[in-house]
């Protein structure tokens, strides 16, 4: 088998993107409406934060702009994650329907196919627009000098955050190889942690902070990278190195999960039913 060059993979990726775009645009009206709906659903918590801060101006020294900036990390990194890893998110279904078996017969990397073959545009846009609205309303008001180092740090933080979330989803996807369904449990853990992470983790008791740093590390998705920019006083109780760690946490988690994933693929026996 010929090794694929990076260039091959990139052109192929764009072909896949064209396909997924076409599938999405087949139902233009419906998909746009879903995007709008997701936007509104995600705006609920933003609106609540806005209304609270409108009345009380600040919470423990955090002002509205800063809290919203903190929140923007969650949405932008989730948007990027769902753009790239919708296939990992829906992996349970892929195995169940036999779609995954088709991937196995093709001369291409598995993860590559899973990433390229499925994109959830409504979720990407719905979350992404909320993230952008928050970002552009706050990023230039909280005293950040957007020089190239800071911009690079920001991009790395968003990328790292996306990979952290992808790793959590991939860990749960791994169980599908032994047809253990973890989708519900995963959603329960993931979305509740995300809910908690919407506000600074210092608002919560110590045990919850530990969970968000060491177990479901949402602290590295938004709290620590935003502390790099904001330097709020409540961050001093944590080790100062944490603010730089987001990309590293992402890479380490992803590598660990990849080992489990490879082991899973090796042990995978098809469910035997293909829908196509």
């Amino acid at each position, binding site marked *: 088998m010929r090794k694929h060059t990076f260039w091959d993979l990139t052109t192929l990726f764009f072909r896949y993107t064209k396909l997924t775009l076409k599938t999405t645009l087949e139902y233009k009206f*419906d998909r746009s*409406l*879903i995007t*709008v*709906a*997701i936007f*509104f*659903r995600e*705006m*609920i918590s933003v*609106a*609540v934060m806005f*209304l*609270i801060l*409108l*009345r*009380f101006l600040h*919470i*423990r020294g955090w002002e509205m702009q800063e809290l919203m900036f903190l929140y923007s990390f969650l949405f932008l990194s989730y948007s990027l994650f769902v753009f790239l890893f919708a296939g990992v998110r829906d992996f349970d279904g892929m195995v169940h329907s036999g779609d995954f078996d088709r991937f196995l017969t093709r001369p291409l990397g598995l993860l590559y196919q899973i990433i390229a073959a499925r994109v959830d545009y409504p979720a990407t846009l719905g979350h992404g627009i909320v993230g952008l609205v928050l970002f552009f309303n706050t990023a230039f008001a909280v005293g950040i000098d957007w020089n190239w180092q800071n911009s690079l740090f920001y991009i790395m933080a968003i990328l790292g955050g996306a990979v952290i979330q992808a790793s959590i989803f991939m860990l749960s996807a791994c169980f599908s190889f032994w047809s253990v369904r973890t989708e*519900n*449990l995963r*959603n*329960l853990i993931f979305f*509740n942690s995300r*809910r*908690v992470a*919407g*506000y600074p983790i210092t*608002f*919560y*008791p110590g045990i919850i902070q530990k969970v968000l740093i060491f177990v479901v590390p949402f602290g590295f998705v938004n709290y620590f990278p935003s502390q790099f920019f904001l330097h709020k006083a409540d961050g001093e109780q944590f080790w100062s190195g944490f603010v730089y760690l987001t990309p590293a946490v992402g890479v380490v988690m992803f590598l660990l999960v990849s080992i489990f994933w490879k082991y899973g693929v090796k042990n995978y026996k098809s469910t035997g039913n293909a829908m196509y």
Partner: protein
Amino acid sequence: MRVYLEFAKKSFQNNIVYRMDYFAGVINALVMIFVNISIWKAIYEEEESLEGVQFKIVATYIVLSFLMQVVYTMDEYFIEGKVRSGLISSDLMKPINFRLYVFSYNVGTTIFRLLMQLMPALLVSIFLFKLLPPFSTEMFIFFMVSSVLGYLVLYNLNFIVWASSFWFYWTFSLVTIKDAAVMIFSGALIPLWFMPQWLIDFIKLTPFDSIFYTPIRIYLGQIPQEEIWTSMLRQVVWVVLLFGIGQLMWKAAAKKMVVQGG
């Protein structure tokens, strides 16, 4: 009547099967309560009361609201599923009132949530989140009545959205947008008294505050005795009004079915 009781029982039993959903419902509610209490605790910091409202009142408001949300969660895609699968035509041929059938199905689910989800969540809330007892026994009875009315307001509002599935193939978007409106305007997530005046004035013109805000305020004893009847009358008016709109839509939908040939 017996047949509708039977439907309610069926839907109750259906819920028992999905153990994970049941479990998730309780956990989600408790996490939401925990997050919101933590935020309000941070807002209050050392203060006993802000703008004349004590922390324990806000905490009770938040706990009650999320417990009520557990009970008020309905199966939003029941009618859509019937329409899409075509089962609706056979349902319409049966000698039953379809609207009553949908209602009894939802009541069955609600009773399931009351017994199986509310009870554990309530116990945890009393111990962990220090839920205050009702203002008085009398107010508690009014609260119960008002909650039922709030449920009916929400149910009839929901029905209007559900009935739209005769015109739209998928109702996910409409349901989600409706949910967002209910969550913000009904005071389910933040007490209305903390909202800006212009927003309160707007909400007073809508049915939303009848759903959560009115019953909770009665529980907290914030509505004087002589005003309770007018508050509940407002709820009744909204139930009737929304039911009427739902009925018109239902008639139009049934007509459309006939045109389609079912």
